[in-house]
């Protein structure tokens, strides 16, 4: 149907403007990241490359950047899952524990299975990892919808339980995983040696899938709806329970993917893996603009949030700050980042308001 005359004609303009608004919310984080990166590059010294002898910047070099991407990958991958849960109005504190359990089970399954061909090893490992994380997510989801207890409590309970299970089955041993897995996750893909692009690529893939899920699919829309107003969603005929179940499963699986990458990259898994990650992950999601009240958030922003946290941590190393201050800096930076992000987008919204209010004037009916 064509746009009729009258009021709706300048709709694309509004859409463009509000689209920019949305995109620029992420732009804000991107700009913060770029400024931070530029400052670090300027402040960091340089050193001669051990192999080529060429002078390289201590921050802006392929190794450091890829290292940061790898560091961020666990937070970012789980952050996408956490964002989806948070948009639905829930919270998942158990991701760190799922990360540990999935890694440990995978390592134990592969140890028990004994030597196999590399492809079989990878597939079995991936299957074990994702299977465990799916079951854990399902458990969370079923309890959240079935027991009518706040997800904070459910996932706090499963966080303790799942880590306890990981601990009991692994006896706290660090279990090595077969090198076939490491070969895949540390594949150079034609880059220089000791540059590992795979964790970065997995992160990007997960972010894109999460983003498409949220923005383009019916399920994604439903996640926003139940996070915004669960009762109205029920009155609109949405399967609220199904959607909730879905988000916890997604969050669980995101922890499973992160566990696979982590265990394969570092070559081992143990029951204490991922301790405390839940808070970093939620922080990444919220720095990325997800609202803990539900109904608001973006997968791409979660990735940017994770990158920001990792960059701040890296800054302490790069600037050779006293590491004793790490916690103080990270805590402060977390608050500042969220405030900057919020006030930035608020400012933008106000400017746009002023601009479009004048622009709108003539078209009032």
């Amino acid at each position, binding site marked *: 149907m064509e746009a009729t005359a009258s009021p709706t004609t300048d709709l694309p303009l509004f859409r463009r403007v509000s689209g920019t608004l949305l995109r620029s919310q992420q732009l804000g984080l991107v700009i913060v990241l770029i400024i931070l990166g530029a400052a670090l590059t300027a402040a960091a010294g340089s050193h001669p490359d051990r192999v080529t002898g060429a002078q390289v910047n201590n921050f802006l070099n392929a190794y450091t950047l890829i290292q940061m991407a*790898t560091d961020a990958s666990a937070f970012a991958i789980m952050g996408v899952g956490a964002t989806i849960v948070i948009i639905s109005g829930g919270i998942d504190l158990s991701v760190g524990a799922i990360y540990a359990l999935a890694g440990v089970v995978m390592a134990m399954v592969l140890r028990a299975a004994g030597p196999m061909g590399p492809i079989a090893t990878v597939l079995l490992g991936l299957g074990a990892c994702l299977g465990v994380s799916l079951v854990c997510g399902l458990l969370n989801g079923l309890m959240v919808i079935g027991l009518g207890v706040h997800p904070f409590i459910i996932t706090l309970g499963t966080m303790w339980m799942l880590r306890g299970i990981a*601990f009991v089955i692994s006896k*706290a041993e*660090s279990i090595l995983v077969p090198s076939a897995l490491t070969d895949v996750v*540390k594949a150079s893909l034609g880059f220089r040696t000791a540059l590992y692009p795979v964790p970065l690529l997995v992160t990007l893939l997960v972010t894109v899938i999460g983003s498409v899920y949220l923005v383009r699919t019916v399920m994604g829309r439903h996640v926003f709806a139940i996070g915004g107003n669960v009762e109205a969603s029920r009155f609109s005929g949405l399967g609220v329970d199904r959607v909730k179940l879905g988000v916890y499963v997604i969050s669980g699986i995101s922890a499973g993917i992160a566990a696979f990458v982590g265990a394969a990259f570092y070559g*081992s898994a143990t029951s204490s893996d991922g301790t405390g990650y839940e808070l970093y992950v939620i922080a990444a999601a919220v720095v990325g603009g997800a609202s803990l009240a539900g109904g608001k958030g973006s997968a791409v922003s979660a990735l940017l949030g994770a990158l920001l946290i990792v960059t701040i941590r890296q800054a302490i*190393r*790069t600037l050779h700050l006293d590491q004793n201050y790490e916690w103080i800096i990270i805590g402060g930076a977390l608050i500042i980042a969220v405030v900057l992000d919020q006030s930035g987008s608020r400012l933008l919204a106000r400017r746009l308001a002023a601009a479009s209010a004048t622009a709108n004037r003539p078209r009032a009916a």
Partner: protein
Amino acid sequence: SRGGAGNDSATSGTPNATTAGASASGKKTFTIAMIAKSSTNPVFLSGRQGAEAAADSIGKATGVTVKIDWLTPPNEDAAVQAQRIAQAVNAGDDAILLSASDASKLVGAIDEAVARGVPVMTFDSDVPTSKRFSFYGGDDEAMGRQVMAELAKQMGGKGKIGILAGNQNAPNLQKRVKGAKDEAAKYPGMQILGTFYHIETPQDAAAEVLRAQNAYPDIQGWAFIGGWPLWTKTLLTDLDPNKVKIVSVDALPSELPYVDKGLAPVLFAQPTYNWGYVSVKTIWDHVHDKKDVPAHVQMDLIRVDKSNLNQWAKQLKDWGFSDVDPKYLNQ
């Protein structure tokens, strides 16, 4: 068959009741509460195995059932340890074996346990100002010094180094760091570029080493105050043994390839199994058999390098570690 002095209780006939009392002729069980720092740290699990092995062997020899009541908190928390000491006393355990997360928080609890008739022994991490009767272990500062001295030796007394320090809030690790720094000060050529903390998991520890190595590309040597990063495989491939040398505390099975490859030419193993084994024997001697025991049973670090790698691997296997690579056992 009832033990105990001052038998003024009318209801003390429960058949399964544990009985205590020094002179007990019919004594059937002897319970030792073992309180290590944290149950997620594998070194303490090996200590528990040692304790249980000692308990078994005493049981076989004497006919008394010696039980190890494992009361280690899941996370390091000295207050919880103090609580568990009291719990052990309240539950009627016969002795307590403790590795203190924070010595000064445990003085009161130990002294009270002793006052209420339960002797306490410490291992690994002492509470010297308390009334514990004996301590089995080394000295954290000395351990730090030893690691740094070895690193200096490996690097010819000069070079730029980093210290990997574990959880920044752990007092015993801070003592090792202090020892390492004091020792490094003796070598004018050794320059400490940074002290790096991390969450105490293998993956986080390994990631921290890589981060630091990127930020300080000229680090040539590492003093690991705990073996965390070596419980992964990643440094095996990501660090070049020709450019970086590591000396680390701990020598668990997953660390052996690092020695083999030369990246960590020397590891200082704590005989963690003996934490339990030696301590339980000592407790038995003192508490049950009334023997005199020294107030400090010295625990020496075991220097593991290529020359004794196989011997050490076998030792680990004997101590009950299941995943020792057979490669090191067969030679």
